[in-house]
């Protein structure tokens, strides 16, 4: 069966510090991978979308970047965090229509 992992679960970072969130998927190959951000009490905003290694689509202009160095690894990064980067970050994978979500990372930028 497929499993998706995200770490860390929670993170508190100062403004201006770098960020690296990792997501890995087990039990499937060549998945579509997604990074979402969820503000408190809101829906999900798609940040990045990847259909394969090295193939990244950015959905919104922002302070973040994504990379996919391996088929089942998706990394969300920032060189310098902003206060507005705080939120709940979710990674997901899909083959077709249904998406499967990781447990999320709660990021607080102070």
């Amino acid at each position, binding site marked *: 069966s497929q499993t998706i992992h995200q770490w860390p679960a929670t993170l508190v970072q100062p403004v201006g510090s770098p960020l690296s969130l990792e997501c890995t998927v087990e039990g499937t190959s060549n998945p579509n991978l997604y990074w979402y951000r969820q503000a408190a*009490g809101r*829906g*999900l905003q798609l940040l990045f979308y990847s259909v394969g290694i090295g193939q990244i689509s950015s959905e919104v202009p922002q302070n973040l970047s994504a990379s996919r160095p391996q088929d089942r690894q998706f990394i969300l990064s920032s060189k310098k965090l902003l206060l507005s980067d705080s939120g*709940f970050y979710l990674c997901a994978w899909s083959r077709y*229509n249904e998406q499967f*979500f990781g447990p999320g990372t709660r990021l607080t930028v102070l």
Partner: protein
Amino acid sequence: SQQGEEDPQALSIQEGENATMNCSYKTSINNLQWYRQNSGRGLVHLILIRSNEREKHSGRLRVTLDTSKKSSSLLITASRAADTASYFCATVPAFRGDYKLSFGAGTTVTVRA
């Protein structure tokens, strides 16, 4: 941008009652999906309904789709305390080759024991 908009934003019901929430969307869709999110957790897929379907059931869940009104409803029958969660609709637009979902802001459901 968000494609789906859920209504109501929040719903509080007694255990055993039914919960109904609605979703409206703006553009033609390939399919519409409902997800549940428990507090502080990831989303879990509940049910998918395709644009050529009008109603679908899964256990205590019933989903309807009216493409002429660009709306869908999710009914949870005989609610339980464990149904307390946020529920999101998400759409896959028609005529696109990808599977990117557009999520609404969600309905927060509280089931009182």
